[in-house]
């Protein structure tokens, strides 16, 4: 409410800077409203007049005026002044007297309002200080003005004799004071924001007011002096509803009493005017004071209690919040500590021996004075051996006793040899095992230096000893894990023109835990691609070693066996005999030339096929039980499908589609949705799928292998191949696909194949023994002809004698020259280049020829 008071104060002090039409209208309305209310209240008040016609014991207009100034500011004074003049004119001796009285009646409430604002009066009258302010400043102090001016005017204008001045003044003063005390609080309560009391409270307040009115009427209509009976009901109302109840109740009681006094009823039947006056004002004052103060007190108490409760609740809330913050901070701290701990652990594991040793840095040192045969150990030496420092006197023999027998013999021999050398030198560092006091075996690293006298006699040996057990162990485990991992996955994928391959292997988050997933891609002798992906149940070194064995076995069978089901069948037999684990595996053979994909599946999640239009389907055929799962499985079966150009095949292990709290079917559905837009870049697709499918920690290994067949004849064909005979068949297959994509005549394709085969065979033969061991093949389409260049990097070695190679070479030369339009062989120290050209008679050219 302070804000409103501030606004009010401002309104009291300042002139409006800008006045427009609607402001003038509003202002006029206020004047009319205030003046009207003042006038009506005055007419009612005059009904209660005790002296002449214009001195009444209860003068409500003063209260109205005070409230008007409080609410609308000092600028409504003309409304008050005019109304006061209108009221006084008919009852005054002359106009001047009326004007004087009206001035007093205007100034008094204005002063009251100004004083109230000054002391920070709150219109709710909900503090004791507000009650005090309204009683003393507004009701008693300010009204001295109106009473003095009014009573004075009565005397001066001759309305009353001078002798009655004190009585008139007293009545005037108390009347105005009562008007303020009784009416102002009531109006202020009325003008407050609407009350949100419940129906029950509304009924209660109405009943209480009715009770106050009844009791008041009752006591005023009996001759017995029972006016005090009203007080308890006022108190009750004030206690229950504070000013909201007290103000109207006080108004009611005072109004009824004043009315009774004016009409000489009940307690006011007897006595002089002065006695009646005293009695009435005493009653009214009691009513006003007690209701005002009581209400203010109750409000203040209630507010204090509420404030206390609120601050208690706030405190509680703050404590709770602070506690939560603290516990969050604590949790964060714990997490950080745990993370750091974890990181430290991983770091230690990874950094192997060096970091391990550095971190522990427990280096003991010793000295051996040889002529005296006296040995001394540092404290750390004792600790390294598992004893308290200086636990026993150390001697050379005792020190060697602590070393494992086998190593002790070696150390003795080394020392003997060192002593015999007869000069200062460092002994080679030596690792040896000891058994510590607690029985634990440790590995130590010892370094020593020998000093000899001028005659070469050994004098002194000093050395350091370090416990490197952890380092050795971490180093060993790391090496094993690394070696295994390397042996499990292909170093690189075969590079086959027109076939894109991409693979990802995501180990489970734990570092040393090598999983049992693997994938493999090999090119078979006939140029087909063998793809495998599998999962050995479990983790750790055993699963990893099983996986390694199976990978090798699978490669061997892939080279030997014809169909995928035969390969899977053989692995199945191997698993039954050799491996105690359960293994899932899918094996596929893809023929890039025909696009045929044949596969057999041993309980592995099905591959996902995404065609060029984004249609997805899981290849669920060819399914048999997992390897090692059942004793007598039936025959494995083959399934086949066709991979169109642009189709993408996705092979994966269950880690990709399994997530805690979700079924594998959800994972498969999700993968299907994600893969529906595979994009151009197969590598990006793999990354995308992994990041979308794997959100939290990788709890299981994930292997992902993607294959896509793409058209490639739009570009010249260029291959760099190892100079080994087994590359010939895949090379022919690539060239065949390239030429077929150009729609070349099948007969010509065969010719080109033979010519390329011959030139390549020569390159392979010549490059044998050469350093590089590679040769290059390129095919370029030019003017409807294919230009072939085959280049080897070996030096030319003329065919020796009449051997098999020479005969083949001769036949080859003849074939090349007969099959090609032109052949040009260029040999030099850098190698041999064969350039050949052959018209292709492409379909488009053939049609053109026919049209002619």
């Amino acid at each position: 409410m302070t804000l409103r008071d501030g606004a009010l104060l401002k309104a009291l002090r300042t002139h409006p800077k800008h006045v427009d039409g609607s402001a003038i209208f509003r202002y006029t309305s206020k004047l009319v409203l205030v003046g009207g209310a003042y006038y009506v209240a005055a007419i009612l008040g005059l009904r209660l007049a005790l002296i002449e016609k214009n001195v009444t014991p209860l003068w409500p207009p003063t209260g109205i005026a005070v409230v008007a100034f409080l609410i609308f500011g000092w600028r409504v004074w003309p409304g008050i002044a005019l109304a006061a003049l209108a009221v006084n004119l008919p009852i005054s001796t002359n106009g001047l007297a009326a004007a004087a009285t009206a001035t007093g009646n205007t100034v008094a409430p204005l002063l009251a309002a100004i004083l109230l604002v000054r002391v920070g009066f709150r219109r709710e009258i909900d503090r004791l200080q507000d009650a005090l302010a309204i009683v003393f400043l507004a009701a008693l102090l300010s009204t001295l003005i109106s009473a003095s001016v009014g009573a004075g005017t009565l005397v001066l204008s001759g309305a009353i004799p001078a002798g009655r001045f004190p009585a008139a003044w007293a009545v005037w003063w108390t009347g105005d004071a009562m008007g303020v005390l009784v009416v102002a609080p009531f109006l202020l309560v009325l003008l407050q924001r609407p009350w949100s009391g419940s129906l029950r409270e509304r009924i209660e307040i109405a009943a209480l007011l009715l009770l106050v009115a009844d009791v008041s009427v009752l006591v005023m209509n009996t001759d017995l002096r029972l006016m005090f009976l009203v007080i308890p009901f006022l108190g009750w109302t004030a206690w229950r509803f504070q000013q909201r109840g007290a103000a109207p109740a006080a108004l009611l009681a005072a109004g009824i009493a004043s009315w009774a006094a004016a009409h000489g009823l009940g307690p006011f039947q007897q006595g002089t005017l002065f006695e009646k006056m005293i009695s009435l004002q005493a009653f009214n004052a009691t009513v006003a004071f007690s209701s005002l103060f009581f209400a203010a007190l109750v409000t203040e108490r209630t507010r204090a209690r509420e404030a206390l409760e609120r601050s208690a609740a706030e405190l509680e809330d703050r404590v709770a919040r602070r506690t939560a913050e603290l516990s969050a901070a604590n949790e964060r701290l714990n997490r950080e500590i745990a993370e750091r701990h974890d990181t430290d652990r991983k770091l230690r594991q990874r950094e192997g021996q060096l970091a391990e040793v550095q971190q522990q840095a427990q280096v003991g040192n010793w000295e051996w004075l040889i002529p005296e045969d006296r040995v001394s150990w540092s404290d750390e030496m004792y600790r390294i051996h598992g004893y308290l420092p200086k636990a026993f006197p150390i001697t050379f023999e005792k020190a060697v006793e602590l070393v494992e027998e086998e190593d002790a013999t070696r150390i003795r021999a080394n020392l003997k040899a060192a002593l015999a050398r007869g000069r200062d030198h460092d002994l080679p560092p030596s690792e040896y095992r000891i058994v510590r006091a607690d029985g634990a075996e440790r590995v130590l690293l010892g370094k020593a230096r020998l000093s000899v006298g001028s005659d070469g006699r050994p004098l002194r040996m000093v050395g350091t000893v370090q416990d490197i057990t952890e380092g050795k162990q971490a180093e060993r485990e790391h090496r094993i894990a690394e070696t295994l991992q390397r042996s499990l996955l292909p170093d690189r994928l075969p590079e086959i023109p027109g076939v894109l391959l991409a693979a990802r292997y995501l180990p489970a988050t734990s570092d040393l835990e090598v999983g049992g997933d693997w994938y493999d891609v090999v090119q078979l002798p006939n140029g087909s691609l063998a793809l495998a992906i599998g999962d050995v149940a479990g983790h750790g070194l055993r699963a990893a070693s099983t996986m390694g064995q199976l990978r090798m076995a699978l490669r061997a069978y892939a080279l030997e066996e014809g169909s995928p089901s035969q390969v899977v069948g053989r692995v199945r037999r191997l698993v039954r005999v050799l491996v105690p684990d359960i293994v899932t595996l899918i094996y596929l053979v893809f023929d890039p030339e025909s696009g045929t994909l044949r596969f057999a599946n041993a309980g592995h999640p099905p591959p996902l096929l995404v065609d060029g239009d984004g249609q997805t389907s899981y290849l669920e055929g060819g399914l048999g039980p997992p390897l090692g799962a059942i004793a007598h499985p039936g025959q494995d079966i083959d399934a086949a499908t066709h991979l169109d150009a642009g189709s993408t095949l996705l092979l994966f292990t269950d880690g990709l589609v399994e997530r805690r709290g979700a079924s594998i079917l959800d994972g498969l559905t999700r993968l299907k949705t994600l893969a529906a837009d595979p994009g151009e870049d197969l590598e990006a697709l793999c990354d995308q799928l992994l990041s979308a499918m794997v959100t939290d920690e990788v709890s299981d290994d994930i292997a992902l292998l993607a294959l896509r067949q793409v058209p490639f004849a739009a570009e010249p064909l260029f291959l760099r191949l190892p100079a080994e005979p087994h590359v010939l068949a895949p090379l022919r297959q690539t060239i065949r696909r390239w030429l077929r994509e150009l729609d070349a005549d099948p007969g010509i394709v065969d010719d080109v194949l033979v010519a390329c085969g011959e030139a390549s065979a020569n390159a392979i033969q010549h490059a044998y023994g050469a350093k590089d061991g590679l040769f290059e093949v390129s095919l370029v389409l030019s003017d409807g002809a294919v230009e072939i260049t085959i280049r080897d990097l070996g030096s030319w070695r003329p065919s020796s004698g009449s051997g098999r190679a020479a005969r083949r070479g001769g036949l080859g030369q003849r074939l090349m020259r007969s099959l090609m339009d032109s052949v040009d062989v260029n040999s030099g120290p850098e190698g041999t280049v064969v350039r050949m050209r052959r018209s292709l008679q492409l379909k488009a050219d053939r049609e053109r020829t026919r049209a002619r």
Partner: protein
Amino acid sequence: MNELARVDSEQHGSLCLVRVSGEIDMSNDREILTAIEMAVARETDRLVVDLTHTTYLDSAGLALLLRLAERMQARQQMLSVVVPVDSRVRRAFELTGLLSVIDVVSRSEDALGEIRPGSSNDHA
């Protein structure tokens, strides 16, 4: 089939029939030669190498056949090679003049004409 080539043989009395299917190049010529020679029994008078299902053959294959022919000749055994007219490998024989060096027939019936029904002795 994953192998580059495949060798099947049948023995019909003194006649040995060897079918080579697939591709022959310098990566598998020795294996094929060995497989064919293993198929030839001591009592074989005549060897028929059927290349009807051979899809690729270059100088390595031709050299293989020449070597085989020499060995057969040394043992006084006869060699015929079946290369159909529409075979993809026929051109290699034509262009290198091997048609005049080796007995090349275009239909297996021509080479097998001497086999009488009932005398079949299948060792496959």
